[in-house]
């Protein structure tokens, strides 16, 4: 019996964001945009979805006059990612 894949993670952009955040302590919006090569609008929507699910923490601040959005993965997000990879292994292995 295959485990169901978390629909929130089983999408290209959200999975990319989670994978990046899993391997760093924190990353800002510009870095995520550059690595995923997504549009700002699309990335922003997907970040909101991950944040609403409690998978990532989003911190908005200002550096001088420029707004800055910093994202980091939460323990819930880390657990969800682990479950997702385990489920994937079931499909592939």
């Amino acid at each position: 019996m295959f485990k169901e894949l978390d629909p929130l993670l089983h999408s290209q952009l959200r999975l990319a964001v989670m994978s990046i955040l899993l391997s760093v302590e924190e990353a800002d919006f510009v870095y995520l945009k550059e690595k995923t090569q997504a549009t700002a609008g699309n990335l922003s929507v997907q970040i909101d979805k991950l944040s609403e699910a409690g998978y990532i923490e989003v911190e908005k601040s200002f550096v001088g006059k420029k707004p800055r959005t910093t994202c980091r993965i939460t323990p819930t997000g880390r657990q969800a990612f682990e479950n997702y990879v385990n489920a994937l292994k079931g499909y592939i292995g």
Partner: protein
Amino acid sequence: MEERTLNEKESLALITQMISSSKKNMEIGQGNYMLIWGYFTTTLSIILFALVNLTHNFIWSWGWMLMFVMWPIMSYRQRQKPPRVVTYTDKVISQVWQVMGWMFIVTFLTIGIIEFSFARYIDFILMLPLSLIYCGIGVSITGIIIQERWMTYTPLIAFIIAIYMLTMLMIGEKATTLWYLYFGLSFVFMMIIPGHIVNHKAKKQCLKN
């Protein structure tokens, strides 16, 4: 990248690709903090050496306190230009230097209190070898973490100079103003040379990517 559902193999490939791309976090100018500290300390040591020798007034030795002023300036500068990404390595290195910073402050206060209590005068000459040891440990640990061999081993020169100073003090020899220059020279080996090497490597890697 778009918002689309992937098949299982694509998912695994994407995870691998993203993790490996964020691991390569070498940025141009990564060695700049070491260079700023290195050049600042070396210049300060030369200026203080010249001032004390030209005026024959040891009041100039209090100029070493500028090292403590530099710390908040650097922290402010970092807050004004935060990094776009902070890796676990960056976090560990930052924590290592926080501990080193506190060791400086605790050592400074302890020496001041003990000397004033027992001898009614304050002479911070012991701070020179101890600073070399603390900084050397910090740089070496940073070198080990980022796997930079030069950074790991060049602090050995600073350790040797620090041990020379401590031994001289132990056998009852007086410290001389030449120690200021030895201190500056240690920073050339410990921070300036590795700083330039790290910057050169980061530039090379960024151009390759």
